[in-house]
């Protein structure tokens, strides 16, 4: 059901005084999680940018119950918490809020285990495409060509396709989202919270600091990722894949904006060659072709 922006709750879960960088997409995402799930949510957060964003103890800039946990433990902690709530007969939506490292790399075995067991929780991967909190090192989610402090000449390897890997876990719900499309994200979160079992949402989150763009343009960059087809919004309920409305037009290659526009906005791609650009275009076509096959 489409959500009207006017009907969104006014209660704030991201409070003044948090410690996020200007233009931080994670803060935006957390605000949307508050709008979608409200006080039903309990957050489990492994190390990452949100460890800082939430502010200093004993205070907190976030009005959720938050259990901070070590990197490789989050989905298991959430599974235990969710199990306790079930056994004690309490209502709660247990949410893992993890970065791309905490999800796709150091956290992956735990994520995969919880997904295979179909533990009742929502895992949100807030993907800023590198280890930003430790100072912009490459991750398996860093796209080819991107500069990081461990790939000075640009990363050579392709981005690991986590949403599809999670889809192949045959869990009840998988979706991608973007901070530039809050209503789409909120709708997906609400849908996920009504489903029992393991739900995975991969949130694309452009980081001004790590991607080298002006903090005023977080939403613009996130939007361009979708419009160029670099990031595809879709969801899969019970394994049935459908392209989400914001991405639908870009199934048609001719309607996609040139990838160059997206690349040009970000300092991390300043050394990208024509050859690599062609390779990126090929990868976008490839990603679309795989998803469209799954969607039919």
């Amino acid at each position, binding site marked *: 059901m489409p959500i009207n922006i006017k009907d969104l709750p006014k209660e704030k879960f991201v409070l003044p005084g948090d410690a996020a960088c200007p233009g931080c997409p994670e803060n935006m995402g957390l605000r949307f999680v508050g709008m979608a799930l409200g*006080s*039903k*949510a*309990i957050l*489990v957060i492994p190390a990452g940018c949100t*460890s*800082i964003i*939430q*502010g*200093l*103890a*004993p*205070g*907190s800039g*976030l*009005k*959720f*119950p*938050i*259990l*901070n*946990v*070590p990197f*490789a*433990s*989050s*989905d*298991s*902690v*959430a*599974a*235990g*918490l*969710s*199990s*306790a*709530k*079930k*056994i*004690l007969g*309490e*209502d*709660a*939506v247990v949410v893992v809020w993890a970065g791309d490292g905490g999800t796709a790399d150091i956290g992956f*075995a*735990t994520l*995969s*285990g919880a997904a*295979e*067991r179909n*533990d009742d929780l929502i895992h949100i991967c807030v993907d800023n495409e590198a280890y930003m909190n430790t100072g912009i090192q490459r991750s398996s989610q860093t796209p080819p060509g991107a500069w990081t402090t461990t790939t000075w000449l640009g990363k050579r390897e392709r981005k690991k396709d986590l949403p599809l890997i999670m889809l192949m876990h045959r869990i009840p719900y998988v979706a991608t989202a973007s901070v530039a499309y809050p209503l789409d994200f909120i709708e997906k979160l609400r849908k996920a919270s009504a489903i029992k079992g393991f739900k995975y949402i991969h949130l694309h989150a452009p980081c001004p600091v790590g991607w080298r763009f002006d903090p005023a343009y977080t939403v613009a960059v996130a939007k361009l990722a979708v419009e160029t087809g670099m990031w595809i919004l879709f969801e899969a309920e019970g394994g049935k894949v459908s392209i989400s409305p914001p991405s639908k037009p870009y199934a048609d290659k001719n309607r996609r904006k040139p990838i160059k526009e997206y690349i040009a906005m970000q300092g991390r791609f300043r050394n990208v060659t024509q050859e690599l650009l062609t390779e990126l275009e090929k990868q976008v076509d490839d990603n679309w072709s795989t998803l469209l096959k799954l969607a039919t």
Partner: protein
Amino acid sequence: MGVALKTLTGNYAVATAVKLARVNVISAYPITPQTTIVEKLAEMVELGELKADMIRVESEHSALAAVYGAASGGARAFTATSSHGLLYMHEMLWWVAGSRIPVVMAVVTRTIGPPWNIWTDHSDVMDQRDTGWLITFTENNQETLDETIKLFRITEDERVFLPGIVTLDAFILSHTTEPVDVPDQSLVDAFLPPRKQPYVFRAGEPIIMGNIPRDLKWNMMMREDIDKAMERAKKVIEEADLLWGKLVGRRYGGLTECYRCEDAKHFIIGVGAWVGDMREAVDYLREKLGLRVGLIKIRYFRPFPREDIIKWLNNAMSAVVFDRSVSPSAGGPIFVEVLASLASAGVRTPVRGVIAGLAGVDVTPEDIANAVLTSVSEAEELGTFKQSVLWFYGGE
């Protein structure tokens, strides 16, 4: 009355205790020799004998993480592991203790590789000594069952609020069948009050655990309070022993048990299953050789029974400490802590550290008697001996 004699392996004694403690959530990953604990609990859950959730995780790190999540949410939770599994969990041990969330874990002590070795030594659990977990060693399957139940009460006491480990030696206890008194459920219910913990994670109640401290001194104070809670636990352990004794008629003493100590001039100190062999060694040395030897069985390594050690060794002529693990270049951890305890009270009793039984090397009562005899003779002849660490392989 209220008890039923059953034949149980150490591992089944643990599983039975967990059932009697009405645990809500269990999570574990199989590893030899812990495996039959998990198997038995899974069976109990599937047969409906135990109303609990079983989270069959993909690793030990996740096992303790799941147990931590469940306990943070207000559930009584349990896990079990051994050796490499325990080392893989190590990060989470710190996190659980630092969060002051009570949980109970059974550790079936096993050698650490390489090479692969499934037999008992205590290196795995000794590696956890600084984490802030209570650590108790058990001598037989009855004590394993009793101490597992007690540990729920002790860890959930507000003076403590720390997690706890009950250890049993690989195979010697874990896979050996012994007669065990299984207390009636009503006795355990009378012994175990409803779960208490410092805070519970609930939806709509915004609390935050583990974010960066504004003042680093608070962080240091958290460590100090764990240190203090560990000291406070000493009294709680004694109270639990007393109450359990009243209910089921079995008392072990608090942190230590002393065997034939009343007139002893020389002491053996040890932990775990081979304390049984040490009892035999004491009997032999007394009855055959007329030596006044006593045995201090350390039941709780954390908190460390400093006061008991000082009390018993204050006027002793010598002591031999047996360690089934070693901190290279420092000696066995029990030896080191006995020395530190004595030094803190100015007690000058000579102490010898014997490192034996590592990697599961079998040590018999005769071996123990022989190892002790060397030191005792030296002390009797010269009045003292040089403090030293001896690697002892037993046999010939």
